């Protein structure tokens, strides 16, 4: 093959895309349609709770259009990080949507499911063997962290997807995957340069974000050649410029020149961006350096309690001036009121108008706002504890008699009735480490389904 074309419908399955852009993309006769389905950006909840952060209807809409086009063009369609977090429940959720469409439309194809959720016993073995390394969390992994996690996934590279392609799969639903893997699998299988492939797919995995105006809900086409690649948006209102593509290389990455991934590192020191015409950019010079041992990233999420919140505003200048002292006293009163260990709950005040957005990173210490928005947050060992403490904090704060108080009817503008909102279980990232593998496919089993 002299060239290979990869069509990315959008930056995330379920975000939507203009049909016209996708039709234009299909006219270019792509060799594969691939899309990234997930991210850790929405936080630990979705992995922990086994839920998708995109809507079922949104995902089904995107899939219906893509599966129809795929059926006509008979090209592979690959989804990475299925269902958002790419764990077993997420993969099953997506599989059911695909099955529903297949039963409605009667499509015939071979589908592969690639699991990325790792059994805790397998992981504990790897842990005992010293195969798990500390990463950006800077905390070494513990046995307890593995045991308390609800779901743990690993980000697959291209190898398990290539394996599924070799087994004849035409539609591939992959569990958690390194973002570019779904797009890079076919080009790597066909022998294209891995540096150029991974770099191109790093750009494609965000849809048309690398264009101007940028958008995650529009299509981008990437064409790979032997020594360069070209990216082009499929919507005529957008264009790729040297700057828009180069700037995208910075997006949400720690170091833009060194991009580690499964099995190696993408090096962009000598990368060159060239404007080909008004809407297309040519990129060359990207290098991939394989690294031993082959390493994948682990993500785990563990429950840490249950949350209840209450939202209120404060407009009284006398209260705003004393807000820190008042909240400290309310905490004290609450603690004294209940015969409960302090470790059973956590009271947090998010004070918008003071440091609600930046917390401790906020350099501006003085309050200059005429009103404050307060989110009272309680995380308790049980939902009942969270409800009890939140209710107590809210009522104590509402009626607390602080010095020089002039508005004696109440201190808070409570936003809602009911004033307290149950938020359910709270999760945190419990595992964010690197796992060394002997075989890049060993923890990613492939199952084939024939429709």
């Amino acid at each position, binding site marked *: 093959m002299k060239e290979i074309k990869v069509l990315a419908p959008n930056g995330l399955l379920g975000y939507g895309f203009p049909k016209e852009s996708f039709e234009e993309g299909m006219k270019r006769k792509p060799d594969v349609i691939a899309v990234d389905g997930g991210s*850790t*950006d*929405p*936080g*630990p*909840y979705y992995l922990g709770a086994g839920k998708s952060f995109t809507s079922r209807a949104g995902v089904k809409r995107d899939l219906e259009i893509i599966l129809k086009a795929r059926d006509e063009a008979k090209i592979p369609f690959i989804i990475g990080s299925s269902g958002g977090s790419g764990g077993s429940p997420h993969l099953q959720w997506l599989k059911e949507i695909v099955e529903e469409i297949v039963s409605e439309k009667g499509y015939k194809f071979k589908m592969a499911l690639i699991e990325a959720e790792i059994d805790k016993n397998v992981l504990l073995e790897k842990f005992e063997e010293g195969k798990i390394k500390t990463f*950006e*969390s*800077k905390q070494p992994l513990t046995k307890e962290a593995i045991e308390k996690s609800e779901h743990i996934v690993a980000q697959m590279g291209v190898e398990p997807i290539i394996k599924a392609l070799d087994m004849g799969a035409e539609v591939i639903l992959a569990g958690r995957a390194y973002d570019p893997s779904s797009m890079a699998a076919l080009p790597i299988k066909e022998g294209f340069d891995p540096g150029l492939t991974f770099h191109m797919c790093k750009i494609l995995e965000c849809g048309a974000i690398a264009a101007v105006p940028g958008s995650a809900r529009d299509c981008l086409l990437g064409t790979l050649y032997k020594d360069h690649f070209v990216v082009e948006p499929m919507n005529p209102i957008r264009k790729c410029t040297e*700057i828009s593509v*180069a*700037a995208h*290389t*910075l*997006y*949400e*990455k*720690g*170091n*833009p*020149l060194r991009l580690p991934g499964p099995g190696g590192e993408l090096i*962009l020191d000598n*990368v*060159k*961006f060239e404007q080909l015409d008004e809407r297309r950019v040519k990129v060359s010079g990207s290098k991939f350096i394989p690294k031993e041992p082959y390493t994948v990233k682990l993500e785990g999420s563990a429950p*840490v*309690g249950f949350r209840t919140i209450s939202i209120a505003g404060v407009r009284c200048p006398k209260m705003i001036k004393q807000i820190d002292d008042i909240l400290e006293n309310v905490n004290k009163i609450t603690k004294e009121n209940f015969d409960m260990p302090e470790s059973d709950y*956590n009271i*947090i005040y*998010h004070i918008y108008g003071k440091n*609600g*957005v*930046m*917390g*401790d*990173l906020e*350099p501006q210490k003085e309050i200059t706002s005429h009103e404050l928005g307060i989110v009272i947050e309680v*995380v308790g060992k049980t939902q009942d504890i969270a409800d009890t403490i939140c209710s107590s904090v809210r009522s104590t704060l509402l009626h607390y008699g602080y010095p020089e108080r002039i508005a004696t009817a109440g201190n808070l503008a409570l936003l809602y009735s009911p004033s307290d909102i149950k938020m359910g279980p*709270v*999760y*945190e*990232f419990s595992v*964010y480490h690197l796992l060394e593998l002997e075989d890049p496919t060993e923890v990613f089993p492939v199952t084939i389904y024939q429709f």
Partner: protein
Amino acid sequence: MKTKNITELAEVIRSKNSGPFELTFDIIFKDYDTYYKVKSKGVINKELIAKLYNIDPSQIVTFVEFDAAKAIKATITRPVSSGAIGETDVYGAQQHAPLLQIEIPWD
């Protein structure tokens, strides 16, 4: 000496998660001349970022000047991991404001 505020020189100033444990800042300049001039002044460096966010310089994971994108990028360790108890900005997209105060010496 005369100075210019960073908002006059940059086209993008943003913050974003880079994984759940890191926060990354991008300053993308309006044109290459501006970028190279700012770069030559050396005012934007690790120490400045640490000072603006009142953190120890050891919390800065990377600091890179990326010529191809006419951009300066710094990445710090998040004080609290994304979505954990007490965390305030799940996507990390509103942590850029202290950067807007940067003044660059300009003649």
